[in-house]
């Protein structure tokens, strides 16, 4: 038992060091973002003498971050709503309704889960161009839905599989249509899974850079992450403003993380424990 306790305390040192290594980059960036350009050039490490919030205002208003932020918000919101709608519909059908090809569909979902975007991005960009969807919100939203739908369906199907068939049968006997069962039973009962997978889908879409870079080329359509990459060149001589822009992009993620940490972990681990 003594060895166990020693091991515990020995482990504390590297673990605390790693925790510092995890937090420090964010602390450093925050400190930089609160400095004036002058202070930054003089000494980039020292704690800022006075919080200089102007950098955030500059990044938000003049660097175009507010526009990028709104663009991302539009794309992510629409994509997540569609993902949850399609994912819960398909998950309900796959888990509770017998139909020809249901197994094939589930396998196709699993297969699609392992097709990375990089592998299909060239033909996808051509298809989108052909449909006139390049550089449009519907195109980007559709691409996000296609990218994260297999994962969403997979999680919703495994969650709904845990709901007893009797509940569905009883509602059907009470005269409810299949759609009624979906709307009045499956959607409310699926709320915890919808929340988990929705939060994770939102993070995936919010954090994406490759899909947006490929499908939304024009400057006024930049999503927040694409905008941040362009900020780097734009503000190469004004690092504090750049740092402020980066932090603005990170704040929604931090808030979502603090509120939904458990749900995110649930969604991440669902694939591991059930697969």
């Amino acid at each position, binding site marked *: 038992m003594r060895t*166990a306790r020693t091991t515990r305390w020995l482990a504390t040192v590297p*673990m605390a060091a790693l925790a510092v290594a995890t937090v420090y980059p964010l602390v450093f960036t925050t400190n930089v973002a609160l400095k004036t350009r002058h202070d930054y050039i003089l000494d980039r490490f020292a704690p800022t003498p006075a919080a200089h919030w102007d950098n955030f205002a500059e990044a938000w208003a003049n660097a175009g971050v507010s526009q990028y932020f709104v663009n991302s918000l539009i794309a992510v919101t629409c994509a997540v709503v569609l993902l949850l709608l399609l994912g819960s519909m398909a998950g309900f059908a796959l888990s509770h309704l017998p139909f020809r090809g249901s197994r094939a569909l589930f396998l196709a979902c699993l297969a699609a889960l392992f097709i990375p975007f990089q592998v299909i991005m060239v033909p*996808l960009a*051509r298809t989108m161009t052909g449909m006139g969807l390049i550089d449009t919100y519907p195109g980007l939203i559709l691409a996000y839905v296609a990218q994260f739908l*297999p994962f969403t369906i997979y999680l919703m199907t495994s969650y709904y599989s845990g709901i007893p068939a009797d509940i569905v049968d*009883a509602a059907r006997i009470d005269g409810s249509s299949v759609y009624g069962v979906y709307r009045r039973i499956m959607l409310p009962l699926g709320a915890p899974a919808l929340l988990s997978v929705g939060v994770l889908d939102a993070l995936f879409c919010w954090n994406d850079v*490759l899909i947006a870079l490929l499908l939304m080329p024009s400057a006024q359509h930049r999503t927040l992450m694409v905008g941040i990459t362009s900020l*780097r060149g734009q503000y190469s001589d004004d690092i504090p403003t750049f740092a402020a822009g980066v932090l603005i992009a990170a704040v929604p993620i931090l808030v979502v993380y603090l509120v939904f940490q458990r749900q995110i972990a649930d969604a991440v681990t669902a694939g*591991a424990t059930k697969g």
Partner: protein
Amino acid sequence: MTGARLLVRSESGRTSSSTSINRARRVRPERLAAYVLVAPSVLVIVGLRLWPLLLGVNFSFTGDGDRDGLAVGLDNYAELLRDPVFRIALRNVGLLVLLLPVAVAIPGLLATFLYLRVPGARLYRAVYFFPAVLSPVIVGSIFTLLLAYDGPVNAALKTVGLEPVDWLGDPGVAMFTVAAVHIWATFGMALVVFLAGFATLDSTLIDAARTDGAALRQVIWHVIVPGLSRTIQFVFVTTMIGMLTSMFGLLYVMTSGGPGGATYLPEYYIWIQQGQMNRPALASAASTVLFLVMLVVGLAQIALLRKATRED
């Protein structure tokens, strides 16, 4: 509930023929509804995931530019093999595969410590997991500041008397730097998966081993590893997929593939050929190679790990 259903069935179906009509009527709308419910998903997945894969493979056998649309056989693949930049990209994939055990062992060990209730475990877990939900763009932006030649990392090295390192400008170092940042940013994901695996472990086994006086190393090797074989397998495969497909943001922000192409990965090569060089067919060939590499490495890993965990 089943009883109630039987009751209703026998009530409504007075004769056997009316029961079967009733059932047929009931099955049809159910089937139809199922198809209606899955139709949009099928359309999206087939149309925008599976079909493009085939299109892409097909497209990789056609030409670019003047030869647009013409069948060129394996020309694109031959060109890939000749291209030194693509070779670097493949070599870097090899490097990542070699780093894979490290990327799995770090979260595995940390999860073990957390599971054994290191003081402050909940806080550690929350802190470690946070970078995993940050965008690669944010992570990359922060680390370009940290790893600048005159940045804080080198300043720290200087205070302990070490020479500064050109983290992102030295071709021999840059790929390791980006890979390390990627591991920093994603180990929390694997950690959480490991912790979920630990929750399924039989803790009495571990307690028994420890009261028998087994060292931590022995407990890990003989109790935890065999007990978590499926979790370990899952983490290996997902970590590898992450390394091969989610480093684009870091590369784009931190190195742009440089210096001198030293940090190219297939995904970055595909992007450059498609977006900048206007060589979509060549990019498709690179996509196909990436897909095959992932398939092979993934299957090989599963086979190897199956064998390794069966021996115990």
